[in-house]
Each structure stands twice: as C-alpha cells, then as structure tokens.
C-alpha cells in the first residue's frame, strides 16, 4: 500500500510553507531517518525526515513551490512489493481545510483559525500618520525587527540580549538578521537563565545602556519577574529619581497554539498592576513598530507584550523614516455608535471581526485597541462609552483580576452615568489552558462569544 508523504507542520503555528528543495529523486530508496526534503517555514528552514521505508514514487509538489498548505500530499512512497512508477497521485485535494466533504475536519485548525484569521481592512487610520503617506504590507515579526534595527542604528547604547537571539536568528525569528548587521557585541546570546540575564539587562540599563531583553516567551519571564518588578520598576522611585532604568523586556505573551497551560499565559494584567512599569501590548504591525521604537527610547522600564499567533500576520505599515507612536494612547480601530468593544493584542482581530458581523445585523460597534496597558488611556474608553453607552471588553486572558476587570472598575467609577447596560467581560475560560484541541477551543475567547455579549448589552439577544 503506497504511503502519502504530506507537508508537515514544523512548528505549533505553521499553516503553510515553501518546499525549498527535494533531496531525493523519484525512484530513490528511502530508509527511515533519511532527509527527503528541505522545507521553509516562516521561521526557519527545516529538514523533512522519512519515517517510513520504501521507494520514492511520484513527486507531486515541485521544489520551490511556495504556500504549500500543511497536510498537502507532496509525494508518494511505494511499499516493498510495489512498483514506484505505478503509484498514482491521490485524488485532487488541496488541503485538509478545503476538504469539507465528510472527511474529518482537523479539529486543531478550528481553534487556531479562530485566533489566526486575518482581519479585514481597518478603515480608521492612525492620527499620527500624515495624509498621503504610502503603506507597505509588513508582518508583525518584521515590523518588530525593523523597529529594533532602526533604533540600534540610531543609538549605540541599544543592544539585544536573550536566548537564541543571535546565531539562531531568534526562536521566533524576530531578531533575524540583527547579528549580521550589528555583531555579537550588540546581539547577545544568553544561556537559559532568565533570572540572571533579566538582572544583567536591568543592571546594564542602570549603568547607562539601553538593553532590549528578549524572553523566548513571557511564560519564562516568571523566573525573572523579580527583576522586572523589584529591580526595574521600583528603583527610580526608591532612589528619589536618581536611578534610571531604560530597559525593554519583550517577547511573545498569551496563548500560542496547542502548547498547554505553562506556555500559554497572558501577563498583561500582572505587569499592568505595577507602578513604575510601562506596559505595551500592540496588535498590528504598524503599532508593533511604532510602539517598540517608542519603548526603546523611553527612559522608563517597558514590558512589551507580543503575540506569537500574530507574528506572521501582515498589515499595512506607513512608509515613514521614523515612525514612533505615543505611549499611553489607545486607538479607535473602527468607529461605531451603538456599543464599544475595548480590546488589545490578538483579541483586537476578533473584536473587529465581531464588529463586522454585528454590522450586518444593524449594530455598529466602536472597537478600541488599548495598545498601552499601563498607563491606560481611560479618556478614550470613557469618551467612547459616553457616545455608545454600552461597553464590552474582549481580552485573550483569564477574566479574574484582568485588564477587563480594570476597565469595568473604571467604567463604574468614572462612567456610571453613561451606562445603559452592565459592562461585560469576554475573556478566556477561568481554567489553565488545556492541550486537547477541542478543549483549547472551548477555553479561548472567540468571535461568537463577543457577538453574544454585545447583543446582550444591546438587549438584542
């Protein structure tokens, strides 16, 4: 029985890749462990290793083909008693996603798809961009890299340190190319030692440098949180303003995909609760770039929360030489008059999607991206609330003591007279994030939940 060789998923978030090179030809004997092909993901070039033995039959995807969906059959492998040349290609199938004809839908895709859908075009431009500016589509990953590179060119004191940031080009490829341009002095690979290198980064900032400390993910920064909170955030105050600490702690935050509870936490509310820190959590590429540049220039310690699932998404970034956004300013992503949806990071995409669907039902939602979690732009939230009189918070985080909780408190204390309905939180379920695909999907915030909450506060359910 011939075996189908399928495009493998080589990272938890990979959806498609480039078949860079075939290392075996049709008719070659394949032994388990042989490297058959090289596949480029958005992060790295990976080797595709044979698991089964046999003869390589037909190659169905030519080398150099881009955008090959995970699960696509790329070649056939003939078994012991088969003639490789007789093997036929399987019936036309593009990818498992397009196969809705009764085949089992790959359940993992459902939860990922919900969080990973590319949002529709945003119609309200950032006020900081001058009229007539041209835009280029850039991924969030590249935007972050560009921000660091630009600031490093500008200021000798800026350097990056962290696990795999240099030679490996970044565990999530965010620091790609920086080692080549800036050298090992300014792009420093650290051992796996978060508490230690967070302290060294913080101390270097106290000593006058401007470190960017990358955490492979913020889950690992729990080992280092003492330096972020006790050393970086508090020392300026405790020294009566003598001790500056212009450090940026950055890395992916929040749920990735199918990596389980220890790798999936959102720390936005934790850090945002600490006076002395600036906390930024951008959603799109333009904000990622403009706000990371602002963070690097800030005299204060900044926690910069990225999102792995958004790294690969592309957005329009203005073609400006020095695109720096103000810290502490929320952005109205979509204007609306009936209800306000407040969000940040990956959930902004879901909120925008919900707003589009609600629009079809006659509800116009205003979507606010907080962008900075501390200091929080209360004014933008309250002004919108005064206009719409209804507010829902969409947050990819646990609900308890969340940013959503904080927004609820602000609305109660300062916007009570404008409220026509209870302020409502739409968050993840209050459980450690499970691994199983169906449970993960159940645990995470999604668009239908936002729509449901909006309808409820609009008394339309």
């Amino acid at each position, binding site marked *: 029985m011939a075996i189908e060789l399928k495009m493998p998923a080589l990272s938890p978030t990979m959806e498609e890749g480039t078949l860079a090179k075939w290392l075996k030809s049709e008719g070659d004997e394949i032994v388990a462990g042989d490297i058959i092909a090289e596949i480029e993901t958005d992060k790295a070039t990976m080797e595709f290793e044979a698991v089964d033995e046999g003869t390589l039959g037909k190659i169905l995807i030519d080398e150099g083909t881009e955008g090959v969906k995970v699960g696509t059959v790329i070649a056939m492998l003939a078994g012991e008693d088969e003639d490789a040349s007789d093997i036929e290609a399987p019936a036309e199938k593009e990818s498992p996603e397009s196969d809705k004809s009764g085949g089992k839908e790959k359940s993992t895709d459902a939860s990922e798809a919900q969080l990973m859908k590319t949002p529709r075009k945003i119609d309200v431009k950032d006020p900081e961009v001058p009229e007539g500016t041209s835009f280029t589509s850039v991924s969030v990953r590249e935007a972050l890299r560009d921000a660091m590179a630009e600031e490093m060119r500008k200021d000798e004191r800026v350097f990056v340190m962290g696990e795999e940031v240099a030679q490996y080009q970044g565990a999530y490829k965010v620091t790609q190319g920086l080692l080549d341009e800036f050298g090992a002095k300014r792009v420093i690979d650290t*051992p796996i030692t978060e508490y*230690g290198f967070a*302290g*060294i980064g913080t*101390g270097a900032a106290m*000593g006058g440098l401007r470190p960017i400390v990358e955490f492979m993910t913020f889950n690992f920064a729990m080992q280092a949180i003492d330096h972020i909170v006790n050393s970086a955030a508090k020392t*300026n105050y405790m*020294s009566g303003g003598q001790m500056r600490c212009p450090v940026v702690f950055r890395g992916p935050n929040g749920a990735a995909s199918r990596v389980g509870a220890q790798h999936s936490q959102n720390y936005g509310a934790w850090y945002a609760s600490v006076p002395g820190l600036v906390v930024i959590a951008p959603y799109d590429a333009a904000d990622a770039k403009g706000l990371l540049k602002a963070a690097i220039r*800030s005299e204060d310690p900044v926690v910069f929360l990225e999102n792995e699932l958004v790294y690969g998404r592309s957005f329009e970034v203005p073609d400006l030489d020095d695109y720096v956004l103000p810290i502490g300013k929320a952005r109205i992503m979509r204007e609306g008059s009936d209800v306000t949806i407040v969000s940040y990071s990956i959930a902004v995409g879901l909120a925008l999607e919900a707003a589009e669907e609600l629009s079809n039902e006659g509800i116009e939602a205003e979507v606010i991206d907080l962008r900075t979690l501390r200091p929080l732009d209360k004014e933008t939230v309250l002004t919108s609330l005064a206009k719409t009189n209804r507010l829902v918070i969409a947050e990819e985080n646990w609900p308890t003591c969340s940013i959503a909780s904080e927004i609820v408190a602000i609305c109660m204390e300062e916007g009570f007279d404008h409220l026509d309905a209870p302020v409502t939180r739409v968050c993840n379920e209050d459980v450690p994030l499970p691994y199983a695909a169906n449970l993960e999907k159940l645990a995470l915030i999604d668009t239908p939940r936002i729509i449901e909450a909006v309808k409820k506060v609009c008394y339309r359910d």
Partner: protein
Amino acid sequence: MAKAPRSKKQPTKSPAEDPDFALHSLQEALEENRHYDASKEQMLHFYEQMLLIRRFEERAGQLYGLGLIGGFCHLYIGQEAVAIGLQSALDGDKDSVITGYRDHGHMLAYGIDPKVIMAELTGREAGISKGKGGSMHMFSTEHKFYGGHGIVGAQVSLGGGLALAHQYNDDGGFCLAYFGDGAANQGQVYETMNMAALWNLPIVFVVENNQYAMGTAVGRSSAETEFHRRGTAFRIPGMDVNGMDVLEVRQAAEIAFKHVRDGKGPVLMECNTYRYRGHSMSDPAKYRTREEVQDIRDHKDPIEGIKKLLLENGSTEEELKAIDKDIRKTVTEAADFAENSPEPEASELYTDVLVEEY
C-alpha cells in the same frame, strides 16, 4: 632493590602546565604577602573611615530605639574593614559598586555626607533618596554607587549588568558586587557567575561572610562554607581574605582589581568577617552566645587592629582620641540634622514613579 622514597609533595607544575593555575593564582599571590604596605597617613585614613562607620551605626541603632528610624535597619558594625579596604582601592571615576540592604557602610566609605544618609534613615526630604528609599534603598549615581537593594542576591545580577556596561562602553572600569553568605545560596548568583565568566565581564564578586544568614549559621545553610571555592565551577579564581584586617582586605583588593582591570575576567573574593549586632535591629541574636561576640570584639576587632598598628607607628592615644571626638561630633550633627529635617512634601508621593509623562 630498594625503591627511592617518593616525595609526598607533587612536583610543582609551571603555570603553563597547570590548568587550574588561574583558579588559585590570586590566592597564592595574597599568601605571599597578606599586608598592604600602607603609609601612616593611609592607615590614619582607614582608621578614621572605619570609626566613622562604627559611630554612625551606633547612633543609627540609638535612633532606631527612639523610634526615629522605622522598618528594617541592618547595621554594619564589625564589618567595617571590608568596605574600607576594598573601596579605598577603587578608581572613583570609573568603577561602580553595588550591594544589598546592609549598605550604610559602603556609602560612608565613599565619603558621602553622613547627614543625607542619616536623613534617609529617618525618612526625611533631605535624605539621599528623598526619604523614599529608607535604610535598604540608598543610591548615589554621582559616585557610581548603585544601591542598596532589598532582595537578597538581586544586586549580584544587577552588578553583572553594570559590569556588562563597563565592558560595552570600554570605559576601563569594573563593578564591585557585594553580597552576604546568605545571598551566596541564591541561584541567580551562579547564573551571573556563569555569564560573567562566559563573557569575561569585569566584576569582582565579594562575599561578605559575616557567619550568619540572618539567624542561620553558615554551617547550617551551606554545604560548602568556603565561599571562595564557589566560583570554581565557572573557572572564576577565588580568594580567601581575613575581612577583619583592613590591610589584608586592601592587599586582596590590589591583587583582584588588577586581575580584572587587566581584562582577565571575574574574581570571587570571600571576606571573612563578623557582625556584632543582630541581623537587623529587631533581631535579638539568640542563635549565638554573648561570649562568641565578645571574643571577636576582644581579639579580632578591625578598628582595634589598625589602632594598635598606628600606636606602634608613632601615633599617640591623644591623637586617636581627638579623631574619635571629631567623628562623634560629625555623627551627632548628622543625627540632629536627620531628626530636625522636614518630612517629604505630600506631593512627593507621586514623583519619580516614571521618568517621562505619557
């Protein structure tokens, strides 16, 4: 045929043949001559500085008892020779210092005005941290003194960062990072040693081994109580120093600082010392006997040690008493200042949280 008697002693290897030479070379250099050849003037200065710390701390203890100093207050009495011996060898324009919360002595060693230190202890506006840091959180960036840190061991990795900045800026300075025998069991200390050795950072790690981590004797908390050996795993040379002898500490500083300034990487120095008072003011120190403390005071006191040398070198009792009298006066003035200075304005509550406005 009778065998020739074998020498028990291994033949001495030349440094080039001995892969571990680097680990013990500094200690050997110290053992060759443990005493810094100080001029009488220098010795007088050491005496004066150590006495200032002693009298300052005694007064701080008194003010604590009067309720003028709150919270935690960790006194340096008994350990004076460490800060003075080491910091007297620094290049004040280049080198940086960082320590934990027992930090009054290190600040006084810089010659920082005792008034602003005492006023910080009493939480006054004139304090060096505007009254917002307190005993454990004092800094003087002007002197490259970076605190004053309240979390045990945190200053070691922060010191690693200061050292990285020295190396990055190629400014010729190094970081002197103090920590205690208690902090020596914190994981981040070793994370930092690993990176410091890996990157050849200019840093001198100093364990001020005062024999007790709060109330726990070193033997009860540390599997290896010879702390100078703890850098071996990272190939950091160690030095075992009598921290009750200011001239030995200074001599060790000469050797260690040269090593670091020559670009040979980090050094780990253990200064064996003793704190006469409790861990903090609220510690009755029941974990040791009065006799133990008295014995150290009688036989190993760092100030008595240098005093004896001075007397042998022609100083008179009167001369030294006059110095003491002047210091007492300085300390009394500092205490009066600290007591009578105003508390911070209420508006100070909201300043210095962030540097910039957003």
